[in-house]
């Protein structure tokens, strides 16, 4: 990577780069991919199985080896130790509610060969769950997953600033954060941030039907009503809610990134827009 820092004497030890582009550096930022004249679903994810894309389910845990989920790459549980110290330990308990397993199963059904990991941020207790959620998201961003499925949000305003920072950090590290929009008329985070891909529900039965919303903050609508999902004990249920629409979009992101790993979250969001059912995806 070319160093374009422009600091002289007295600069700090880890100098901030100058946010400018000298003429001779232009060649260094050439796009790594040829873009087609028209971005189609066939170009975006035709033939993709999600292989190579790493998806993290930040939720209640995932029941490993459920027939609709398969093997997990990793499973950790986040807890807070003494002095608010964050602990990420191997999760042997699995899923404490069934919800994380449902999300994992939806991703698996659309992207059968992607890698799935679980980061459990629920279950220890309700008290302090906001702090654990933040710690879990920070951990997941540090692991460099390609996609983090976050079918949950917090209404706590004091957490909003830190979440915002984490969402931006994920965005610049090429980790796509796919977050559920709130179904209820309340302020909650992080789905409202522009650095994440926010998802609400539509009622169509096609798992690949998704719509771009011209009136944000919700940016996309995925399948979220009467979805067959895996649940605890190797069985399945029918479930509804934005939290089930989110893994549909997360899975489509995994398919696209599997085929086009060079895409940044910004470019990925554009591809989603251009292939949305109400934009170019119906062709």
């Amino acid at each position: 990577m070319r160093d374009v820092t422009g600091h002289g004497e007295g600069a700090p030890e880890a100098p901030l780069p100058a946010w400018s582009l000298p003429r001779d550096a232009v060649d260094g930022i050439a796009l790594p991919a040829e873009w087609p004249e028209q971005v189609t679903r066939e170009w975006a994810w035709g033939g993709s199985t999600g292989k190579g894309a790493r998806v993290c389910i930040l939720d209640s845990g995932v029941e490993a080896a459920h027939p609709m989920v398969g093997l997990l790459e990793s499973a950790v549980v986040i807890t807070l130790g003494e002095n608010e110290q964050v602990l990420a330990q191997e999760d042997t308990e699995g899923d404490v509610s069934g919800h994380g397993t449902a999300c994992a199963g939806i991703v698996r059904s659309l992207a059968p060969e992607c890698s799935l990991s679980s980061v459990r941020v629920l279950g220890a207790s309700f008290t302090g769950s906001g702090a654990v959620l933040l710690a879990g998201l920070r951990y997941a961003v540090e692991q460099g997953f390609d996609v983090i499925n976050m079918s949950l949000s917090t209404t706590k305003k004091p957490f909003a600033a830190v979440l915002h920072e984490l969402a931006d950090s994920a965005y610049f590290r090429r980790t796509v954060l796919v977050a559920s929009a709130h179904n209820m008329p309340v302020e909650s985070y992080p789905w409202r941030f522009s650095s994440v891909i926010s998802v609400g529900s539509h009622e169509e039965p096609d798992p690949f039907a998704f719509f771009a919303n011209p009136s944000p903050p919700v940016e996309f609508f995925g399948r979220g009503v009467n979805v067959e999902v895996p649940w605890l004990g190797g069985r399945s249920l029918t479930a509804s809610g934005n939290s089930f629409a989110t893994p549909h979009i997360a899975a489509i992101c995994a398919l696209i990134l599997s085929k086009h790993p060079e895409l940044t979250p910004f470019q990925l969001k554009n591809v989603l827009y251009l292939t949305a059912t109400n934009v170019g995806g119906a062709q």
Partner: protein
Amino acid sequence: MTDKNDLTAAVAAGVVGSEEAFRALLSAIVEVARSIFGAKASSIVLLDEETDELVFEAVVGEGEDTLLGMRYPAGKGISGWVLATRTPLVIEDVHQDPRFASDVAEDTGYVPKGLMAAPLLYEDRTLGVLSVLDRPEASLFSLQEMELLGLFSNQAAIAVDLLLKARKAERILGGNGTDLRVIARLAAAVDALEEERREAGVRLLGELAAMLGAKQS
């Protein structure tokens, strides 16, 4: 030693009503919830932050005789997920798998085929969970119902917030003996007077305040 908030709570307790009145309000809420969704049962559980448990505060339909006051851990199960994520959820056991029952029964005490659950959110606090159990069979869930559930839980959350405030006031009164109870009784008595006598009562309280050297805020 009492602080300004305690006095405010004491006056509020006199004016806003009793625990029984709020219980009746919560019962009415779950009754309406059951009715608008054509469901078999509905319940409200509230979070007890001290013990990290959910407590049944209102139940209609199955379990209404046995569940009130029952507690279970707040971190687990379906209500635990709804509470922690502040997100509504609808699940139905279309295959009638008996194993589903054990998870939900842990929350509710009976065996439903399906449930809708929404968090009770007030300002930035999560107070508990409203559940509606067993909607009519063979009716597919729709987004309209989800929206209705969300709106309805917001209304329920306002009632729950009032209940919690009244309880806090009661606790303060209970812990501070008779001095604050007098203020609460006075506030309630003036509030209950007919229009003319009420005006006279308010004037009298004004005079009393002036006599005690209280400045007008």
